[in-house]
Structure formats: C-alpha cells, structure tokens
C-alpha cells in the first residue's frame, strides 16, 4: 500500500513538471539515474543488460554439453583447467552434464526469454507507445527488476556449489527434485533453484500487474485500445498470461518445498532408495506435472507473444505497409492466450494420466494451430508486395516467421497423442521447441533490439555486422536443429550423456559432431552482436529523430533519456499506427499517429 502512495506523489511530481513547462530538472546522482532508476527506459535497458549476461551464461553452458555430445571419446584438458569442478580427466562429469542441461533450460526459458524479453520491451515500449509519462507505478517497476536481480544472484551462485547446481531438468520433476539424496544436484542446488524461482515469480507478478494497469489506464488522448500498436497488445496478453499462470507455479513449488523440508507426501509415494523404504505415502508425481505444466505451457506463450508483437510492428514499418489484418492479429493473440491454459497436459501424454484426457488435450492443442496460422499468413501478406527495406531488423523478422513455421509444423505432430508415443522424449521434441520458442523468440528479440536501438541510445547499430550476425545465426540455427528431427524420428532419446554404448545410435556420431560445431559457431557469432551493440552505444552513427520513418509515438518523443518522455503536453492520437504508403501522391509514405485525419479520411469513417 505504501507503494501506491508514493506513486501518487510521483504523479503529482509529473503534474508539476507540466506546470514548469518541463524545464525543471532533478539533480540526479549516477546511482539514482542509472542504478536505482525509476525511469521506465532505464529499467528496460537494465533488463536487457542482465538478460544479455544471462544469455552468455546459458549459451555457454550449452556449448559445454554439446562438446560432450559431439566428441564423447575425447578429452579436453583446457576445459578442465577452466571448469575444474565439472570435469574429470578432461571429460565432463555425468552429474555436471545434467546440471548444465538443467541450468541451460532454466536460464534460457526464465531469465532470458521471460524476464529479459518482456522486461526490456514492455518497459521501453509500453509508456512510450501509449503516450504516458511512465508506468502506473514506477516503484513497482523498479522492484520488479531488483527482484529479478535477487533471483539471478541466487540462481547464478548455485552454479558454484560444490555439490553442483540443480540437475532435475528445468521441469524439476519429483522425486528427483523432491528427495535431497536422489542426486548430487537434488540437495542444495535444488534449494537454490526453488528460492530463485520464487523470487523470480515475485518479479514477474510486479512487472505484469504494472504493464496491464498501465496499458488499460494510462493511454493518452485519442489512444483507444484499437489504436494501440500490436507490440502493446502482445505485451498486454503476455502479462495477463503471466499473472494467471505463475501463481500456480508458486503453489507447485511451495508443495515441493514442503515435501523436501517438512516430510509431507504431496508428490511422493512408495519410494525405496538403497533397499530402504522411505516413509512417504499417498502422494502423486502426476499432480506435480499437472501443476507444473499449468504454468509450463502458458510459459512458452509468455516467451513467444512479445516476439510476435515485435515482429508485427517491425514488419509493418520495414515493409512500408499497414499490418495485414490488424484486428485478426489481436483476436488471434486473444485466442492463443485463452487456449494456452487448456493444453498443458499434452506434455504428459505418457505420464500415466488417464489416456482419455489425451484426446481432449490433443483437440485443444491442434486448435492453437488456427490463431498461429492466422498470424503467419498475416505476416506474409504484410510483406507481400511491400516496399521492403532489407536491413537487419527486417531480416530477423523474416527469420522469425521462417522459424515459427518450421517449428510450428512439428508442433502439430507432437500435439497428437498417438504420434507422441513414438516421439516423446526424443531429439524431435528438442528440435521442435528450440526452433519454435527458443530461436524464434531470440530472433524476435534481436529484431526488437536492432529496431529500437536508436530509441534506446540515439545511435544506429552497424548494418554490416548485423548482416553477418543474422546470416551465421539463421543458417547455424537450422544446421543445429534440423538434423535433430531425424535423430528423434530414429528414436535417439534426449537428455542422454553419451550414445557410445548404443549400437543403434552409433551411426549418428558424425551428425552429432556437425550439430556441436554449428552450436559453437552460432554461440561465437553472438559476440559479433555484442561487440556491435557495445560499440554502437558509443561510436554508432547518430540516429535522426525518427530513423525508420515509423508512425508510433515512441518516435514522437524526443530522443534521449528525458524523464517523463515528452517535455510539454502529451501528444494526442488521431489515427491507428499503420498508415504506411496510404496516399500515392503524398511526399512521405507514412503518417504518424499524431497527425489529424483529413476531411476525406473522416468521410471514409476509417
């Protein structure tokens, strides 16, 4: 409650800004301006910076276990020097392998693609694109980031535990996660994981409540809901999905913590370890899976929806055409949001749940193909006969659409409970979700960073380096994940430490090497992006006020880090954000949202 009072004083402060004509300046120290900042633009950059650090860690871990999978017989003394506790005799320990896989999944799904993707673009874009001075509650916004930092510290420090980080997979199925004696990582590593995730949920909740109430309540004059850019719509639905699904993860984790610490039996029943029966009775591991996947599945939409919003906006701007099917885009987002809560058990077809449930969940899962296909067709028709600018943001958007199609189609295979019997827990699944929600979401994020970089730092990113980054990443991603489909169809199981001892899989040794080499190359290629990013902040070409000639309000607000976004009055909105190439006889091919309708347009009742 304290929060809201300080917000109100904050709003008053804004009003005073107004009265002074915006010429009033705070004396801000470095700490209040860049570290404990309440300005949404700075908080967005903070989310992005921490997310990049996490992406390096998460990607680096995957390189380590890809080395093991690609060259299972060779030794790497140099890696042992650096990661001495994870390697023995130049080879990755099996326990460390499982920790790395677990932490790679956790970091990428939660810390990079949930917190950082939503956090960066919701913070940067929501107030700017709806024409507000800041979030509804700047303090909650900052708290959201600092809870994310706290979660990050706990999760990162678990990598340095002598017993190893959590190793039950990012899905932390019990009993592996519930019994501290089950594996080395099930002890302290798991405890750290659980604490970090609870902190993480607090961060998500604070952020999500703020985004929703800002979008619903703080829009500037004329900015009706159906004049909002699609990025804002996507962030609205993402936040709602997060608000409704993350609390169920809290319940799930709380019961797990009780099982670990208080001797309860929520998820445990009839377990014998080392010939000794444990005193647990009457629990159900399937209950855990239901609770977990009630979050876990919406989670993948939390990851992909912001990327979809970014791609919709960037594609329209860069192909100089109105987005095709604006309302269809919104209602398909809504459709995905609703359906995302009705499909979770398709992760559990083989868990032992009632097989009749399988048919119901297959039905809902396949229904998601409809809104997804609507979106894909709309992106393609937006590009169709557009005046496309081939630059890095465009390329990443096109890459996103390509990956989303490739990965989405295999989703239809896996959503069928019968086909899933063959493909469950194979590399086919790994290929599917990495392409459709992993790489695709990264591509959306890259498109967003390249596109809004001038808005963040007032400079442009280097196009040549951007092209190189895109080309290597795009081709590399397909080289990594395309072959995995064939591995999966041949029955190669995921999560295995080595395939040496299986004659049936020996023929895939070379394929695994190719995948590992591609993974390393793609990982290294990301440093091209990082160098470009850091270099451009200081030395990039100066950006003009509206470098992409876009219609949305973030380009109307003066560049730089002005607290309150607009020096004078807030802009008034008269039209939707997608009036590109509207009049053939006009000098410019775009009409910003702040331009009033012409008499002719009014008569059209647009």
């Amino acid at each position, binding site marked *: *409650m304290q929060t809201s009072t300080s917000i109100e004083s904050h709003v008053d402060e804004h009003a005073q800004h107004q009265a002074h004509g915006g010429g009033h300046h705070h004396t801000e120290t470095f700490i209040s301006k860049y570290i404990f900042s309440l300005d949404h633009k700075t908080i967005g950059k903070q989310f992005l910076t921490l997310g990049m650090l996490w992406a390096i860690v998460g990607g680096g871990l995957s390189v380590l276990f890809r080395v093991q999978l690609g060259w299972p017989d060779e030794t790497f003394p140099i890696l042992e020097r650096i990661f001495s506790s994870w390697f023995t005799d130049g080879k990755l320990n099996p326990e460390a392998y499982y920790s790395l896989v677990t932490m790679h999944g956790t970091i990428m799904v939660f810390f990079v693609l949930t917190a950082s993707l939503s956090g960066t673009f919701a913070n940067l874009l929501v107030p700017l694109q709806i024409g507000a001075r800041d979030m509804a509650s700047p303090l909650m916004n900052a708290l959201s980031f600092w809870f994310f930092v706290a979660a990050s510290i706990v999760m990162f420090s678990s990598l340095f535990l002598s017993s190893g980080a959590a190793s039950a997979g990012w899905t932390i199925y019990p009993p592996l996660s519930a019994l501290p004696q089950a594996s080395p990582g099930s002890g302290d590593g798991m405890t750290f994981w659980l604490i970090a995730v609870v902190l993480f949920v607090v961060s998500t909740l604070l952020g999500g409540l703020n985004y929703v109430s800002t979008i*619903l309540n703080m829009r500037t004059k004329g900015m009706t809901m159906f004049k909002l850019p699609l990025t804002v719509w996507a962030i609205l639905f993402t936040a709602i999905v997060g608000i409704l699904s993350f609390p169920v993860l809290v319940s799930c984790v709380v019961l797990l913590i009780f099982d670990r610490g208080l001797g309860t039996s929520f998820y445990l029943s009839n377990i014998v370890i080392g010939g000794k029966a444990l005193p647990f009775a009457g629990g159900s591991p399937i209950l855990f899976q239901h609770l977990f996947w009630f979050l876990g599945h919406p989670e993948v939409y939390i990851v992909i929806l912001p990327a979809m919003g970014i791609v919709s906006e960037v594609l329209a701007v860069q192909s100089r055409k109105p987005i095709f099917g604006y309302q269809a885009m919104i209602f398909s987002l809504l459709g995905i949001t609703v359906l995302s809560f009705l499909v979770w058990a398709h992760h559990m077809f083989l868990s032992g749940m009632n097989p009749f449930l399988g048919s119901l969940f297959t039905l809902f899962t396949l229904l998601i193909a409809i809104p997804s296909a609507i979106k894909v067709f709309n992106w393609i028709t937006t590009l169709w006969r557009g005046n496309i600018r081939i630059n890095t943001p465009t390329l990443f958007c096109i890459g996103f659409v390509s990956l989303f199609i490739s990965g989405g189609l295999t989703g239809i295979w896996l959503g069928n409970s019968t086909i899933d019997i063959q493909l469950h827990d194979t590399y086919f699944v790994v290929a599917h979700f990495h392409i459709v929600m992993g790489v695709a979401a990264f591509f959306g994020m890259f498109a967003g960073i390249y596109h809004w970089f001038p808005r963040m730092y007032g400079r442009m990113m280097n196009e040549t380096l951007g092209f190189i980054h895109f080309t290597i990443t795009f081709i590399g991603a397909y080289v990594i994940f395309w072959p995995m489909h064939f591995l999966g169809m041949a029955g190669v199981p995921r999560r295995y430490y080595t395939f040496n001892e299986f004659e049936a899989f020996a023929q895939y040794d070379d394929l695994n090497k190719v995948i590992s080499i591609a993974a390393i190359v793609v990982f290294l290629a990301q440093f091209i992006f990082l160098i470009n990013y850091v270099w451009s902040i200081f030395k990039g070409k100066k950006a003009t006020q509206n470098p992409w000639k876009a219609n949305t309000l973030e380009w109307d607000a003066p560049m730089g880090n002005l607290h309150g976004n607009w020096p004078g009055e807030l802009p008034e909105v008269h039209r939707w954000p997608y009036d590109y190439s509207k009049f053939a006889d006009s000098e410019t091919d775009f009409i910003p949202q702040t331009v009033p309708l012409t008499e002719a347009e009014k008569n059209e009742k647009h």
Partner: protein
Amino acid sequence: MAEVLDIQEQQTELHNHVPTPDNGEGGEKTVFGISYGKTMMWYFLLSDAFTFSAFLFSYAAIRLGQPWWPNPNYVFKSFPFMGEANVPLGFVSVMTFVLILSSVAVVRAVQEGHRMNQKGVALWMLGGILGGLFFLGCQAWEWTHLIQEGLRPFYNPFGPDANGLTHLVHEKMLLSPGPVAFGALFFGITGFHGFHVFTGVCINVWAFFSTLNGKFQRRGHYEMIEKVGLYWHFVDLVWVFVFMAFYLM
C-alpha cells in the same frame, strides 16, 4: 445544516468521479472505468485466486486418491473451554461467522468513506481488524489443539476407527493411522490462508491509522479503503472454499 449536507454531497460527487485517464493529464477512458490502483488489485486477486485454486485442486486430487478420508465431524469436534464435549464443527462455525462479520464491517467502512466520514471509516475498520484478529486467534487455538492430538504434516492420528472403516485398511502396511496427506493439506492450505488473513490485518491496521491521521480525508477520497477492502473480501471468500473443502466435505 442544509449547507453542511450540500458540502457532503459535493464531496461524494468528487469521490464518485472516476479519474479518466489515470495520468492526470487528460486522455483516453480507462478500460473498466476504474483507477489503475483498483485495476492492479483486481488482477492481483485474480492471480491469487489461481494460487488458491491450485492448492484446492491438489487437495481434491490427493484426497480422491486415498481409500478413505477422516470424518470432519470427528476431527473438528472440540470447543475451547468445554473439555471433552462433542460439538462437531461448532468452533469453526463461530470463526467463519466472525470472519464474515468482519467483512461486513469493512463494507460499512467503505460506505462511510463514500460519505467522507472519517470517524465512521476508522470505527468500522477497527471492527474489521478485531474480527480478523479473532479469526487468527481461533486458528491458532485449533492448530494447537490438533497438534496436541498428534496431527503433523507427515502423520495423521485420525485412523480408520474414527470412521468405522477398519475393514478397508491393512493396518500393518500403514506408517500412520490415517492418510498422511490430511495433515499436510490441512496445515498447508489453512496456513497459507491464515498468512493471507495476517497480511490483510496488517494492511487494515495501516489503513486504520492512515484514516485516523486524516491522510485520506486530505486526499479527498477514500479509494484506498476500497482497495484494502477488496483484498479483505477476497481473503474472506477464499475461506468459504477452504471451509467447504476441509470441514463440509
């Protein structure tokens, strides 16, 4: 006198005016016609409702997986200061009734807020706080009592003899006379609800003192009492479901 009424009416009107939009600089109408604070509170409650639903679904799933379940009329039959008297569900009825009364008190506080009656708000908020504290006290007594009877998160003394179902159970196979999940679920879920009541009381105490020192009066409206009230009613509503699950079914 008529003048006073007039001022009151004006103030009521002032209060009922919904800020549109919320940034104080003129703009689009808010979507639900409520302030951002209330929007936030509603979405938070929705999210919290999902937390409790997950717990109650877990309760249902685990309970339906057991061969039998302790009879609530037997487990919850004690009443403070009445020794061995058999009063099935008597005590919990009192607790529930008081909690509902405290919700009514907060409704009255909101109403007095609409009338800009500072003393009325403070008085009824105090009623709400006392009701909440009474409920927490009752819960503490009930927990203590059940712990004395041997109930633990990992042990349930309420065996089949309590239900006349001995024939269903191979007693030697069991480490605990009753299904162990009973204690775990009872302490877990009523504890989580009790934690909500506790935070609710803390927030209400804050609202009470803020009312007393005239914070909301100066602000010109008592919307904060409405927001606090929303949370309090939610906690009350959740209890109805928890009560149903543990005591009536």
